[in-house]
């Protein structure tokens, strides 16, 4: 990648809203967020709506010929994405709770999510 991005740091919030398999959106969102960290931007990552299914334990994409997205999510903090949030209403609507999740995430209410969006320079919804 060309390192043409210049400082100062901006705050990017990525909101991943699609289930992990069946569409490429979850992967696109993750790839874009990792690119933002490579360019040393401040990155928040939010799982919302069907995106919370990306966080489920015991994924095996290999059975359907896909890469297992959950494995990549486990590396989020290695890439410098420490601010990982999950929409708690989305979890509740799907009868899920933090015990079902693969990685440590900070639950947020819709109001907290709205505030996060408000203080971000850029919001990318995928």
């Amino acid at each position, binding site marked *: *990648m060309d390192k043409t991005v210049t400082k100062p740091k901006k705050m*990017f919030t990525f909101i991943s809203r699609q289930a992990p398999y069946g569409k490429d959106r979850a992967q*696109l969102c993750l*790839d874009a967020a990792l690119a933002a960290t490579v*360019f040393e*931007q401040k990155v928040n990552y939010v799982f919302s709506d069907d995106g919370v299914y990306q966080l489920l334990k015991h994924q095996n994409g290999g059975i359907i010929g896909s890469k297992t997205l959950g494995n990549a999510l486990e590396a989020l903090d290695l890439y410098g994405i420490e601010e990982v949030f999950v929409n708690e209403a989305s979890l509740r609507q799907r009868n899920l709770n933090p015990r079902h999740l693969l990685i440590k995430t900070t639950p947020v209410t819709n109001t907290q999510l709205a505030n996060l969006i408000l203080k971000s320079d850029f919001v990318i919804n995928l």
Partner: protein
Amino acid sequence: MIFSIVIYSAPFTTQSASTALRFSETLIAEGHKIYRLFFYSDGVHNASSLTIAPQDEKSLQAEWDALIKVNKLDSVVCVSSALKRGVLNNEEAERHGLAGHSLRDSSEISGLGQFIDAYIHSDRVISFG
């Protein structure tokens, strides 16, 4: 205002890519600047040179090509999206030992850094598809 446009969808299947083109044309007509077009995911098909439009239909790829060339726009296709969909420039085709190339010369292949860079340098980034 400075805009960038991100196109996620292929031509024809949905209207999004066509709407993106009309929107881009209108921005320029209204005196705005376009910092970058970024073709991501299926959007890379908009930059293919190996397409033939039916006689009574417009070629969306040709229209993008013309818009980019006439206005000297910066147009990037995402490398990982493009290679796996068979949208390659000559250099990539040779590197991978493939018989032909399929990327219009109005677009270049680059990474997602250009996507992030577009956000940083634009007043607005509009996504289609």
